[in-house]
């Protein structure tokens, strides 16, 4: 009986599942994959949409798409404000983070549209694949994000001071270099954790939808529908988490030990005053 079960499990049943993007065609020596094609399409639509909204922006709020974009912008700015501590700094760094928030959220959501995936195929490969369901794409997003954070931090505090942020402490102490090496390694690990989190959430969501529509047979719309809504939530949540973590890393990079000590001291004094 066990042999029967294992044979059933080993047989090639189940929906077609892709973890890697499919190669569509070659252009000037570069391989164009389906996720790249979809990213170009998505970013073109997003640029047109945001340019249209930016032209329609008025002091009195308008209904429709303008309002949605305004809510997103205000949301990211408030996240920045909460992390940076001041409105001026939040507005200074808002352009990049608002862009990455809208790009990831839009990429995730258009990846859930019908027709993306196995529906349309070209030479055995799906024509469209969500950009964030491709590790290359999310790794690129994470690398750009961390590079921008380093750039902002160097611009904020200067190159030497930024290096001293990692190698804090007395320079003759060998422990400083050990801890600094660990800190630099930590920055590199952050790139991979940002990329893997986004990629795995979106790709596994797609696999779950594929599995449940396969299990449902003729009732596929009914069984896959709840998971589609779950993924809609995950799409927005992951965009928020990507931006939130980037903002946290930025606020860690531009804060200095001195300020932290002062903050700690003032908190301790306050606690003492409260206790008395």
């Amino acid at each position: 009986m066990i042999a029967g079960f294992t044979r059933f499990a080993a047989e090639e049943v189940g929906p077609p599942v892709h973890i890697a993007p499919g190669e569509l065609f070659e252009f000037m020596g570069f391989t164009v994959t389906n996720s790249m094609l979809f990213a170009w399409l998505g970013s073109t639509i997003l640029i047109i949409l945001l340019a249209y909204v930016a032209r329609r922006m008025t002091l009195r709020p308008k209904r429709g798409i303008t309002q949605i974009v305004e809510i997103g912008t205000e949301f990211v700015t408030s996240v920045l404000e909460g992390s940076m501590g001041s409105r001026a700094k939040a507005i200074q760094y808002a352009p990049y983070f608002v862009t990455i928030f809208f790009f990831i959220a839009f990429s995730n959501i258009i990846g859930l549209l019908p027709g993306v995936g196995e529906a349309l195929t070209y030479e055995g490969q799906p024509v469209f694949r969500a950009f964030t369901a491709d590790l290359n794409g999310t790794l690129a997003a994470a690398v750009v994000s961390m590079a921008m954070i380093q750039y902002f931090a160097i611009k904020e505090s200067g190159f030497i001071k930024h290096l001293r942020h990692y190698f804090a402490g007395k320079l003759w102490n060998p422990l400083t270099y050990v801890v600094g090496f660990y800190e630099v390694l930590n920055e590199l690990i952050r790139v991979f954790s940002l990329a893997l989190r986004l990629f795995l959430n979106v790709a596994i969501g797609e696999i779950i939808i594929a599995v449940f529509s396969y299990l449902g047979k003729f009732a596929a719309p009914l069984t896959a529908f709840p998971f589609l809504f779950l993924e809609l939530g995950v799409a927005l949540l992951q965009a928020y988490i990507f931006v939130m973590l980037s903002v946290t890393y930025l606020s860690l990079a531009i804060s200095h030990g001195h300020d932290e000590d002062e903050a700690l001291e003032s908190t301790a004094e306050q606690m003492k005053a409260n206790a008395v």
Partner: protein
Amino acid sequence: MFHVLAELTGNVEIVGKGIMLGAGMIGPGIGVGLIGNAFMNAVGRNPEAAKFLGQILVFVAIVELMALLVFASLFII
């Protein structure tokens, strides 16, 4: 018994995947449970703590990454 084990040799991969998925989800499950426990405790003691829901989701995402890595390893081994 040994007969059964000998029969399993052909598809050990499937058994390994099952054990990996089951065992690997234990840790993240406990972790997400602890985060939820701490959050509900904090909200119960001080209802104003409910405003930290966004930060709680970030921590959930950090723990969730481990579970997702386990799931993704299914396609690698």
